[in-house]
């Protein structure tokens, strides 16, 4: 099943959306929509987490689901992340499809043992006898001025340990389609939701159920001079930067990776081969962020086509600052433009 129409951020449709009924949704609503439709389609799909029931989730992503499906399928868990995942392992291995919510990515740490030690390993450990088809939803990233631990963008944590798929949508359409695909996936999928743009904009999303395939990147903007590679909320920042640069006749292509594991190397390399220049953008700290893997793969597969070293625009190697200094930490349009300039004038 594939996406009936893909688009970049707000209104930047790249090709026509086929005629299907659509609704204007935010990312948070699209996420909810995907869960709702999958729960209707498959009674084995459960939602569980802290405050996901009566409260409807602290970001309202599960709003109304408990009224619709009852507390046996929308489960308010005790305050215990290790159990949210550990019990999901038990549920998934015996036939359910849990969609677990970790309230903020910064609170996934107590669950790491269950994620790394079991969820990611059950299939391989048993050579396929027991599996863990489950989704772990986690709002991630900065930009909302919250207290400590609420701004983490720690995708790299899940990428050196095999067994997960890691999916990060950048817009409402993909949020719905990718989450649908994640729920139907036979393996554990970490689904990171860019909270900064949860409600930042609405977009027409097909009202029916559809899946955007996991493992396929999306060219969010075509261009010829440089490739910007990003995921989640940084995609929008890249698109903004591209607009700014367009005024100076710099034509940037923006690759929205959408899935970090498995990575769509082909799409990414093709773009870089075409443009000869690349900048990778992420919110996480610089050192050993997933940007390093991107740079490395480009170097492994397109070194001779590179006109300049690939640049990284990232967070700094510091603890994510509290509100006052947040803006100085996060990648900005200006930093992206400066990095592009430096690849152009290498």
């Amino acid at each position, binding site marked *: 099943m594939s996406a009936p129409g893909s688009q970049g951020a707000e209104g930047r449709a790249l090709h026509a959306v086929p005629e299907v009924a659509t609704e204007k949704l935010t990312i948070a609503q699209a996420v909810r929509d995907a869960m709702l439709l999958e729960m209707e389609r498959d009674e084995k799909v459960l939602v569980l987490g802290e405050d996901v*029931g009566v409260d409807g989730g602290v970001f309202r992503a599960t709003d109304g689901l408990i009224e619709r499906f009852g507390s046996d399928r929308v489960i308010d868990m005790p*305050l215990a992340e290790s159990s949210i995942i550990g019990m999901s392992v038990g549920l998934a291995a015996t036939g359910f499809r849990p969609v677990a919510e970790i309230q903020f990515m910064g609170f996934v740490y107590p669950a790491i043992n269950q994620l790394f030690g079991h969820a990611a390993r059950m299939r391989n450990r048993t050579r396929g006898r027991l599996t863990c088809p489950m989704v772990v939803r986690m709002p991630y990233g900065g930009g909302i001025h*919250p207290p400590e631990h*609420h701004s983490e963008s720690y995708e790299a944590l899940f990428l050196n340990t095999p067994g997960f798929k890691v999916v990060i949508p950048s817009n409402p359409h993909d949020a719905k389609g990718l989450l649908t695909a994640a729920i139907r996936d036979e393996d554990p999928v970490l689904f990171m939701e860019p909270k900064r743009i949860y409600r930042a904009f609405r977009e027409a999303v097909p009202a029916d159920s559809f899946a955007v395939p996991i493992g396929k990147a999306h060219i969010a903007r075509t261009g010829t001079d440089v490739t910007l590679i990003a995921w989640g909320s940084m995609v929008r920042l890249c698109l903004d930067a591209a607009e700014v640069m367009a005024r100076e006749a710099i034509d940037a292509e923006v690759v929205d990776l959408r899935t970090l594991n498995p990575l769509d190397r082909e799409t990414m390399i093709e773009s870089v081969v075409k443009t000869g220049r690349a900048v990778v953008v992420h919110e996480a700290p610089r050192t050993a962020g997933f940007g390093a893997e991107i740079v490395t793969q480009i170097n492994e597969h397109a070194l001779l086509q590179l006109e300049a070293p690939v640049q990284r625009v990232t967070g700094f*190697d510091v603890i994510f600052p509290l509100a006052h200094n947040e803006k100085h930490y996060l990648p900005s349009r200006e930093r992206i433009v400066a990095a592009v300039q430096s690849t152009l004038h290498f």
Partner: protein
Amino acid sequence: MPELDPSRVRDLYRDMIMMRAFDDKALKLQRQGRMGTWPPIKGQEAVQAGVAMAMGEDDWLIPAFREHGVMVLRGVPLHLVYAYWAGDERGSSYSEDVRCFPVAVPVGSQWQHGAGVGLSLKLSGDDAVAVTFGGDGSTSEGDFHEGLNCAGVFDARTVFVIQNNQWAISVPLHQQTRAETLAQKAHAYGIPGIQVDGNDVFAVYAAADEAIQRARRGEGPTLIEAVTYRLGDHTTADDASRYRAEEELKEWEGKDPILRLRRYLEQKGLWVEDQEVVLQEEAHKWVDDQVKALEEMPPQAPEEMFTSMYAEMPPHLSEQMQSLVEEVRS
């Protein structure tokens, strides 16, 4: 009821009034966009005042994140508490002689620090005690279990205080555990557990005093469950009316620990309206001064995000800091 002389009882009342005043102010500041997310303490003042009064000068406080009251009573300047919740790390940088950990946001993670500090005090022959706080929800985390179990094994000089305000955001206590009380969880660790009415400041004081003295004598840790109620929303980002019945709130507003203590004082003839007026005025003046102090703090330099990462700044961080400084300057 322990023998507290009238002046100390009035101190307790004063402490609670001060808390209520600064909590109210924080909510106002938040609505005005001058404060970040704020977790109100309204309704939980008796727990915090009672425990604070039972603590000795050198005792350590290890808070979770809803302990501004006791933090301020232990010596953390209010303007720094405000600064912290307004999004400034310097708010956790109070002076060395304030024996208080910073706010611990990851729920439950502070219980083990309490056990560790309690062991530290024991090993160093320090006479002090570590008092650790947490919420009812935090008792579901594995760290609660580990912290209390280890404290028991090592006879750590630690007192564990649960502010059982009966809700963890939207999850009521009976969905948190099937145990009838939280105090009985102590049994799992072979340590004493006691449930007290957390809106009765004398009961809290008595329980805390006994537990702290026991720990000080080297007789091991105690778990105190103080049953109270969160009269406000979980935080300023929450809307408790989504999940909490109006009647329940009303009922608990009637049990407001401040009203209760005031009624007691009045009955005993220890308090008259004039004093109340003076105290309220004093409270508001203090809070206003602290807001002023907050607003007079020079802005935090952007490069401060780098300067406390390590004792010595490694080269790659200096480079990054330099790039930020240049960017900000230009």
